């Protein structure tokens, strides 16, 4: 229920003042997700895989991770999509470690790193903060995830 806490906190006038927020007196309460936007979303690409191909060509560092207890955009969805990029494998599939536990599994392709995060839902850093932190540090350092 954590997002309920945000609904309380960010609708407090003293918080909005401290954040220099809502300076124009928005005619609706602050809320975590806007119903009107999601119900009236216009253009949405069927697939961003073509964009991935261009961005890989541009030489960006691209990491895609997936919490493996999410059923909304689950790990099999991401794997199935990424598999259609047909990227050559650089470092074959292996378990990565967080402390002395398997943090998930990963495979490094030419141009993209994929990793699962064990025991994490849709919001990976919420459910597995330490594993997410290791993932982020490795990404920033451009280093493969720890093998032990």
């Amino acid at each position, binding site marked *: 229920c954590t997002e309920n806490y945000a609904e309380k906190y960010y609708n407090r006038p003293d918080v909005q003042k401290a954040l220099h927020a809502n300076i124009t007196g928005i005619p609706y309460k602050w809320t*975590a*997700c806007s119903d009107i936007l999601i119900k009236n979303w*216009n253009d949405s690409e069927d697939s961003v895989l073509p964009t991935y191909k*261009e961005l890989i060509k541009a030489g960006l560092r691209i990491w895609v991770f997936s919490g493996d207890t999410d*059923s909304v*955009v689950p790990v099999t969805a991401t794997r199935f999509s990424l598999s259609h990029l047909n990227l050559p494998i650089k470092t074959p599939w292996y378990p990565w470690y967080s402390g002395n536990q398997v943090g998930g599994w990963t495979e490094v392709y030419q141009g993209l790193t994929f990793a699962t995060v064990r025991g994490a839902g849709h919001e*990976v*850093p919420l459910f597995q903060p330490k594993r997410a932190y290791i993932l982020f540090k490795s990404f920033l350092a451009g280093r493969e995830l720890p093998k032990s």
Partner: protein
Amino acid sequence: TKQQELDRISALPGQPPVKFQQFSGYVTVNDNHGRALFYWLTEATTTPEKKPLVLWLNGGPGCSSVAYGASEEIGPFRINRTGSSLYLNKYPWNTEANLLFLESPAGVGFSYTNTSSNLKDSGDKRTAQDALIFLIRWMSRFPQYKYREFYIAGESYAGHYVPQLAKKIIDYNKSYSRPIINFKGFIVGNAVTDNYYDSIGTVTFWWTHSMISDQTYKSILKYCNFTAENSSKECDEAVNYAMNHEFGDIDQYSIYTPFCM
């Protein structure tokens, strides 16, 4: 800059003392329609001048990076149950980077538009364009971040926002020999990627994780054409049956977590 100082946060109500600096405020991204995006910058806890800048985007579409990314995922603070105070996140990402949370597009959270029809004509394209304009103007306000290593991070529908903004930045940078946006890469989680393959993979997950019966799985595969623009009545019935009669009262975003009443 002067505006930067006006955006400085001295302290948030109920916040524990911290050493890093914070700024928040608005950047106008469309003057005609009066669209302005709200940001919150939590600088790195040590040597912020040497650490990269990371822009965090949540998805939805229509969901707030302040509500999720900043307040329950990677930000330095967590909100307590009554919304009366903040406590420190044990694994905040601002030990490694300067974190820039953006509520995008206009209409999300504190971000607003003076043209109410904008709330009904949003989409991928304008969201990416407005986010690029935000970045360029934000960097004018925070010139110390020009040329700094820059990354984007996000989750869920930001699986669209992030690569689409990345593409805009790559194209924008082509016009400059030394671009101010020193874009190095991006990381996305549980990201919406491809409608067809995501759908097949999602139904597969439901079956392999025993959330649906064999019969329902077969019905969905039989009646759902995931390449079609609109789903058939039989497909909707099969998926609704799964969600309403077989999933049970679970949190679909974390299937082993108790449901939030």
